[in-house]
């Protein structure tokens, strides 16, 4: 059965199963305590670095997808973005570092924020989904889409998401048992993502956004975020990571 694994002990097969899409996701419970998540969420919601962008109501940080062909602008924004995140998270207790350490421990590989020619990639992105917000069906694939960037050479891209605040209802991550392939480009939507026709009758797994939990999944599997319902926002911290060699991982957004 295609079902998520709740991590109880480290296993090499988890990594291989994520890469192959044999499991939809790995859930690591209680990476952060509920009280720490609550205090971080309060800091985030009071931050002056929040920006509103089309397709998602609010975010802190930048990502490659906003700068596919604007490399210098991306690295300039990444610098600002990383400074904003440092301001929000205390230097000695950054949830980005905790996520990286957790990944390193699970997969027995060292992980670093990616850099290219001395420039550091954006280390993470905070997304704030408010009532009515959702994310349309898509996949993430830097190998195919970000050819201007060194990160496009990284192997086996995975996605890590830490839930910092759960909404009252909705906001589930739905992952489909369907891996992207080049022919699917014919089903693209002009602005973002793919036609829902691609996932008709495809098995799916819904993952509830429980604060403190971290999930790791293969972002080449089609996925979307269901509508958030209620006045409490869904707040996540996320980044991608992938192999630069057998024992080393790079992370980025």
């Amino acid at each position, binding site marked *: 059965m295609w079902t998520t694994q709740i991590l109880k002990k480290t296993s090499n097969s988890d990594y291989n199963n994520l890469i192959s899409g044999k499991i939809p996701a790995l859930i690591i419970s209680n990476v952060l305590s509920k009280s720490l998540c609550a205090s971080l969420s309060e800091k985030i919601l009071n931050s002056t670095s929040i920006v509103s962008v089309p397709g998602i109501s609010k975010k802190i940080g930048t*990502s*490659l*997808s906003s700068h*596919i*062909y604007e*490399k210098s602008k991306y690295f300039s924004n990444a610098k600002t973005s990383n400074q904003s995140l440092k301001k929000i998270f205390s230097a000695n207790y950054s949830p980005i570092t905790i996520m990286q350490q957790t990944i390193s421990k699970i997969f027995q590989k060292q992980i670093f924020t990616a850099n290219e020619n001395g420039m550091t990639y954006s280390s993470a*992105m905070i997304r704030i989904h408010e009532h009515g917000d959702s994310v349309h069906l*898509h*996949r*993430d*694939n830097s190998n*195919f*889409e970000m*050819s*201007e960037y060194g990160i496009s050479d990284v192997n086996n891209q995975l996605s890590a998401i830490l839930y910092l605040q759960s909404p009252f209802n909705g906001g589930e991550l739905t992952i489909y048992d369907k891996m*992207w392939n*080049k022919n699917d*480009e*014919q*089903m*693209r*939507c*002009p*602005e*973002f*993502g*793919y036609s829902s026709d691609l996932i008709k009758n495809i098995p799916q797994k819904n993952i509830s956004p429980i604060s403190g939990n971290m999930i790791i999944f293969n*972002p080449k599997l089609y996925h979307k975020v269901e509508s958030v319902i209620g006045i409490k926002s869904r707040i996540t911290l996320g980044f991608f990571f992938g192999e630069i060699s057998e024992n080393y991982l790079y992370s980025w*957004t």
Partner: protein
Amino acid sequence: MSDIIWGTVTKIISINSFEMNVSHQKDTNNDSYQDMEEIQFTEIDIPSIPLDESSRDISQIEQNLKDKFVKCEISGRNSENRLVCTVSHSGAGGY
């Protein structure tokens, strides 16, 4: 306003032309277009493809355009029945 179509590049013909599977057409286009069209690009908004045609080669075009989803702003048809367009990438398939 010029007509706009979107679709996937299926075959590279030369350093300034390709074949495209048209999947989307702007609602307010003046003309309608075939499912498969040949495109001649006069301008291209993809930094890895040099603007100067003499600096381009086919492998460069293959690497940057083959199988990619692109947006074509149409200015007319040439004598070979190819659509003459300004080509750019369109949106993103993901983050």
